[in-house]
Every structure is written in C-alpha cells, then in structure tokens.
C-alpha cells in the first residue's frame, strides 16, 4: 500500500515533468498556428497577426500560459483546439477508442502468435524449424511497419481487389465492419512485434529449461506439458510480460504513421496533425494522455510481476 502511494507520487512528478517539457518543446518548434494559417500565399498584416495571437492567448508570457494550462488540466479542462475550436478533452476521448482497440488487438495477436511460436522454437529439435523462426524473426524486426502497411494495401487491392470500407466504423456500431477495417493495420503492426516476442520467448524459455528445478520436475515424473507450462513458462514469462507491456505503451503512442496510412482517426494521427498545424493545445493534451497511459501501463506491469512471481514483493 505504501509502495503504491510512493509510486503514485512519483507518477505525479513524472507527469508534471512531461507537461513542462512538452509545453516548452511545442513552442520551440519554428512557426506557429498563424504562419500555418497564412501559408506562403495568405496575406496577414501585423495587426491581424497580433489579433490572432491574442485570441489564442499566445501573447501572454510563457509562465502564465503554462500555469493556466496546468491549472485548467487539474480541473479536467484540456483547452480548445486552435484549429477547430473543439474542446481538446472531447476530441482526445473520441479518438482514444480507435487507438486503444488497435493497440489491444495488436498485442492480443502478437501474444497468440508469438508465444506459441517462441515455445515451439525453444523445444523443437528440428533445425529447419529453428532456422525458419529465426529468419521470420529477423525479417519482422528489420522491416519497418509503414512499409509493410503499404505493401499490404497494394496486395489487398491489386491481388484480391479488396479493401474495407473507408469511413471508420466504431466496434459498437458494427463489429464485423470494424474488424475488417482493423485487419490490415493490426497485421502491419503485429508482424514486427511478434518477431520480438518470438525471440524473447525462445531465449527466455531456453534459459529456464536449462535450470535445475526443471530437471527436478522432470525427474519427479511430471508430464512434459505440465513441466513446460506450469514450471518453465511461468518463470520465463516475466521478461515477456515486460516486453508486451512496453509494446502496449509504444502502440498507444507510436502508431502515428500506421493510423495516417490507413486513415484511422486515432490519437497518433491527431497528434501528428496537431504538430503539423502547431495546434499547441491538441499536441499538449495528446502527449499528456500518452504519458498518463504509459505510466499507468508500467504500474500495471509491475503489479503483474507480483502475481507471476510471489518472490517479488514491493516494500
């Protein structure tokens, strides 16, 4: 309990640090919303520029802007988008499900494919299978997922003349159409990540399988399945869960390009677009949301350790 309290305090400190950092970083980017609105063709006079600056509150000193932002965030108000005047909190909440779904389904697929393959690779005696798993793993690690995404689109449309409906349908409206829409993005993300999990599972399992207690378990006459799953896998899982947790965090924030390619209105693309548009409230809000999900995921992963390995106790 005490540990949890301490962790929560640290989380607060981390979030405050992130907020200061992102606040300064977006403002250090060359150009602001006014430059973007005017482009190279629009013609804004000096007084018009000042007028817009004022309307966005950008004419105030930075410390004042920062304090106002943090203060209103504590009250649940993330500000309003410069570009669309929509409340940022509402915008992010409407974008969150897409990203969460994408991340969760990807991690699920990665686990379902990566874990069994990794276990298989660790116990097989077939040199071919080992080699195959290694090659697939290497390819998955080295090919960037945006490239896979484009190849998948081309293959689907040219070879199969198939593409799902383009306007995004949330799963609660039509789960079947939604799943079709998610299929290619998930595949493009999962290939690379599954490779990591396969390799991780394999090496972790090999290490555990060489340990004395596994031999003891076998010597006791336990069935190989029980030895493998109850004794070996459970102990091998800790590094794998760590990797999956990190991947979840990465997916929640790092699917920017995938979302853009497939035209999925998720958080990643919203953030990227915010950066392009110098829409400070949107960028700041999205980064804070990422930071929050990241620290929370990490906390959950740390708590899962204790159930996986009762020896781990937090004081």
């Amino acid at each position, binding site marked *: 309990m005490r540990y949890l309290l301490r962790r929560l305090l640290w989380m607060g400190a981390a979030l405050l640090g992130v907020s200061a950092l992102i606040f300064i970083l977006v403002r250090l980017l060359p150009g602001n919303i006014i430059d973007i609105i005017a482009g190279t063709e629009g013609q804004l006079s000096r007084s018009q520029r000042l007028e817009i600056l004022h309307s966005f509150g950008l004419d105030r000193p930075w410390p004042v802007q920062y304090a106002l932002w943090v203060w209103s965030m504590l009250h649940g108000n993330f500000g309003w988008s410069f570009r669309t005047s929509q409340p940022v909190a509402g915008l992010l909440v409407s974008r969150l499900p897409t990203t969460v779904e994408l991340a969760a389904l990807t991690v699920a697929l990665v686990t379902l494919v990566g874990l069994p393959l990794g276990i298989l690779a660790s116990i097989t005696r077939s040199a071919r299978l080992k080699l195959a798993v290694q090659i697939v793993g290497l390819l998955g690690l080295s090919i960037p997922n945006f490239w896979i995404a484009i190849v998948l689109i081309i293959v689907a449309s040219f070879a199969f003349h198939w593409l799902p409906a383009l306007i995004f349908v949330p799963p609660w409206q039509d789960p079947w159409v939604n799943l079709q829409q998610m299929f290619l993005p998930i595949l493009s993300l999962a290939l690379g990540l599954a490779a990591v999990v396969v390799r991780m599972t394999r090496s972790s399992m090999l290490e555990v399988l060489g340990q004395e207690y596994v031999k003891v378990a076998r010597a006791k006459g336990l069935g190989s399945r029980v030895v493998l799953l109850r004794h070996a896998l459970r102990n091998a899982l800790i590094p794998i869960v760590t990797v999956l947790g990190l991947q979840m965090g990465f997916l929640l924030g790092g699917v920017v390009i995938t979302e853009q390619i497939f035209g999925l209105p998720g958080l990643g693309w919203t953030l990227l677009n915010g950066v*392009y548009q110098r829409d400070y409230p949107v960028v700041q809000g999205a980064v804070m949301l990422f930071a929050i999900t990241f620290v929370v995921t990490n906390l959950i992963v740390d708590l899962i350790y204790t159930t996986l390995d009762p020896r781990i106790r937090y004081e």
Partner: protein
Amino acid sequence: MLAQKWELSNGGKTYVFHLRPNVKFHNGQTMTAEDVKYSVERVLDPKSASPWRSWFDTIEEIKVVDPLTVQMNLNAPYPGLLGSFAGMRASGIVPKGLAERENLKIKAIGTGPFKLVEYVPQDHITYARHPDYWDQPLPYLDGMTFKILTEETARVAALRAGQIQYAYVNAQDAQQLSGVPGIKVLKNLVASVTLQYINVSKKPLSDWRVRKALRMAVDTNEVIQKAVFGAAVPSGPIPSGYGDWYLDPKTLPYVKPDIEGAKKLLAEAGYPGGGFKIEIKCSPQYPAFVATALVVQDSVKKLGVDAQVVQQEWGAFVADNATVVKSGGKEGGEIFTSGNSFRPDPDGYIYPYFHTRGSVNYGQYSNPKLDPLMQQARSIFNHDQRRSLYIQIQRTLLDESPNWWWYVPYNFEATSTRVQGYSQSFTGRRFLLKRAWLGS
C-alpha cells in the same frame, strides 16, 4: 451567381448588386442583402483575421439599399472585385449573425449546392444535397463523403477496390491508372505557378544580373521532367492558361538554358566564374518543389555557384518565409520554392509581390518604372489596355527576375467510370461536382 446583375458607377468606385430572389440557405432561411453585408463585413473586420482580406480591402462601405440590393463603395476603382467574389476563398454568403452562433471552423451554413452534414477532422467530411439550391435541378448527387486519406497509395488502392469513386492523384499514379478498366483519369492545367521567391535585399541576389544569370542556366523542361514527370507547361508570372493575361509559353525567355550568356552576365555583375554561395529552401511536403530546387542547384554549378538546398518541415518553411516578408528581407533566408495558386484577378500575381508597397514583397523589391504601371493596371477597366499593361509588366519582371517562375502543372483526378458529368476547373477547386452524377 447570387447576384443576377450589377452596375458600376462613379468611375468604377461604386458597385450595385441586384440579388437573386428566393435564394435559400441550408437552414431554410431566405438570403437577403443584410446577409451579404454581414458576410463581407466579417471578412473585412481585422478581428476575423482573414488571410484573404486583401482581395476585398478596397471596399470602404457596404449599404443595404433594399432586401435584394446591395451597394458597395470602394476607396479606389478596382476591376478585380468581381473576381474576388467569384474566388471561393472568403466570398461565401452566410446568414447574418452565424459566426457569433456557430463554430464556423467545423460547421457551415451557406447557399451552395451541398450542405455540410458533418466534419470530423482527420477522418471525413459529409455533404448532403441542398434541396432548395437556386440552380435547380442541380445538384444531381444526393450527397458526398470525402474521406481524408493523405497516403497516395491508399487512395489509389481504394479507387481500384471500388471503395471510392473519386481521388486526387499525382502524375505518376495517373499514368499507371490510365487504361485500368472502370477508372478514368482527368487531366487539365490549373492556375498554380511553381516558382521561387527571392529575397532581393541581400548580395549577390540584390543584383538583377545575378538573378537573371542563374535563371538562364536552368533548363525549364528539365525542371518539369524531374518535378512532375513532364506534366506541366512553362510559365511566366501569370500562370499559363489564365484568361488571356499570360505570356505565351512559346515566347518565354530562358526556357532553354544559356550557359554562355549566363557566364557573361555574371562576369558583368562582378562575379566572373561565380564563386559565391546561395541557399534554396523547400519543404518535402511538396516533393515537386524539392525536385525543382535540386535541378536549380545542379544547374547553377555550371556557373561556379554553390547552391545549398535546405529541406524544411512545412511549418518551419512558412515561418521563415513569413520572417522574410515581415523583416523586409533582413532575416529568414534567400530563396523559397513554392507556388502561387489561383487568384481571382491577374493583379493578385503581380501587385502584392512586386509593387514597392506590396504586402508580400520579398526583400523590398522596387522598380520605380513598374510601380505606376502596376497601379494603373489594377485600376482601369478597359480589358485590352489592362492586358497590354500586364504583358509589359511581366516581360520586365522576367528580365529582372525578382522571382524565378517555372511551370504550371497539370492537375490529375481519377474517377470511377460511373462518375458522369464531372469536369475539372482551372481554379483547381472541385465545385463542378455539382454537375456530377453516378451511372450504373
């Protein structure tokens, strides 16, 4: 055409517009002169901070004569005003008071053929047919949805798979798509001239001979080949194809490179054998602009000039660009690769950039002989006189090269063969979708 007819008086300083009766807004309200006054005044109000205000800023006063008559008094005669109203940038008429009631950044009420149903940024825009559109039986389509797909590959794939019926594509994909069954590719010139703005306040680019010499070293057709795969026409300051205001591409100087002449001119300017550096900025957001900059870099090497191409993210690029204009050329950079898109009047390509008091003058370019000509060209109404003035101005500009003008690109749009009745516009806008329908 929300005005049925209009009259000019007072030496071109007073416009009286007679509005079409019974034009309905998307909310069912009938459009009146009050709405016109409100909409135009909103653009003129500095608080709205419209980037297109300069198109209308000759308007001094707007009077409602009766519910269907509006009078506009100008501070100077301006023949481009009608064009500004046809320019589709800031000329939409909205119901009086709308901006105070609604968030116009994501909502809209107008008089157009389609009404905005929903705009979800980064996802889609949905329109529905406006049943009371004044130009019946248009539009034919019951509605349209624009899906935002920034990835070209995804657009082409969606078109091939039949998920969309219309897509904007680049020259390369247009080539691949032509001949694909079920898809037709449309092609036309658009009023958008690819060019390089030059900050003329700093040495050595402050010397017109240097600017002209560098321009002469570049093969315009090579630029067109590498930037847009050959799908463009060389152009002067006013885009080729723009009414009859443009210079015939056949008569344009320096379409073919003239290295010897360029070397001679550089020597005259005091730079025999080059020996100086210039910096060209461009943004990878527009691959064609980057390719253009690279061809220039490569070509001026032959003159002994070391050009550096700096690629910037778009936001950083426009910020530097704005800095040049704001600082009168003291800061920001030297050469910017960009484009001038559709302007409602030829004046828009000339006066703001090259008049001594122009609002986007890059580094205080000033030619005392040109200033009165530009002033005259934007205030007289005789077409032939105006035209000969603009031809003369453009010739002088090409000679002094305060910008380097390259080409007007073809615009490619691909549609399903089911899409009938649609045609492209020289403006590059898609307003003729109001005449489109879907066949079987």
